[in-house]
């Protein structure tokens, strides 16, 4: 063994024995991975929402278009944005600093994700899933209120018909 090798061995083993260096627990890396995955999923949700919104705004739409457009904007998933930002931030802080993971085809993954987002965004808009979501989902209550307001605005209420 050369002097350098002996020095390295002694220095490392002394620090390990004296507990000057400690192994990071397994949960630390698991947490980083989970935060990253959850953040990434939320980022995808937001991206799909945006693509759907853009697709809708590009299409010609009737007199209710502005109302529906406003509904879509009002239903922006802020929770997803918050989770995406925190998840990716925490995940990259934990994982990027100790980025010893194995090679992944990042370009392939990115291309796949971009295509998946664009296609699903357009599909959601074309197939009318956004309508379904607005009517059936947590926006149902909001829609009912909105509908009542619209009816009042245009004077189409039951009372008006009777009168």
């Amino acid at each position, binding site marked *: 063994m050369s002097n*350098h*090798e002996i020095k390295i061995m002694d*220095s*490392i*083993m002394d*620090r*390990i024995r004296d507990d000057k260096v400690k*192994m990071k627990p397994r949960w630390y890396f698991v947490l980083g991975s989970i935060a990253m995955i959850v953040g990434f999923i939320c980022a995808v949700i937001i991206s799909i929402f945006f693509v759907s919104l853009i697709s809708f705004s590009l299409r010609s739409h009737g007199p209710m278009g502005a109302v529906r457009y406003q509904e879509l904007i009002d239903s922006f998933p802020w929770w997803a944005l918050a989770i995406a930002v925190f998840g990716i931030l925490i995940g990259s802080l934990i994982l990027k600093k100790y980025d*010893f*993971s194995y090679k992944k085809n990042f370009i392939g993954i990115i291309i796949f994700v971009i295509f998946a987002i664009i296609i699903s965004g357009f599909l959601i808009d074309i197939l009318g899933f956004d309508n379904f979501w607005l009517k059936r989902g947590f926006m149902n209550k909001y829609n009912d209120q909105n509908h009542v307001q619209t009816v009042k605005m245009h004077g189409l209420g039951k009372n008006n018909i009777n009168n």
Partner: protein
Amino acid sequence: MDEIKNFSDEQLADYVRHQDKEAYFEIVQRYQNKLLRYVSTITNDEAKAADIVQNVFLKAYINLNSFNHKKKFSTWIYRITHNETINELVKYKNETPLLENMDFRGGDDLETDFSKKEIKEKVKKCLISLPFKYSEPISLFFLEEKSYEEISDIMRLPVNTVGTRINRGKKLMKKICQTMK
């Protein structure tokens, strides 16, 4: 303690994680020579290489739980070494001769000119003069005897790029070695 000598690197890493941290001694013993040689050929400075390798072993120990024992331990530790060496080179960029823009074109297939053994000796002498982007894959391929796939994992480059760099590096090295004679 003698039983660990028969362990594979991956088994040994698992053993250190779950059973006996003292067994890390064996990992250091198995890799310090290889890593010192690898880093020395890149930095051309043994003392600096020793510092880098020491940091590598410490980081590897601290992050041993992030190692996936289903993968190759050697690739993992070489990846850490690659990162650590790059960081050091960036820190001391002005001191290290990084001849990134230097390139030569050569039409011959040098695979026929050099056998692997012959190259191994020449590599040691000429490697220092090569630009870093060529010296690293050549060092990994000829001195550390890593496959293209492993080098691709360590350097995070596509396998084709690794092949191209090794081929260009060989041509470049031939030119440099010839001018050295």
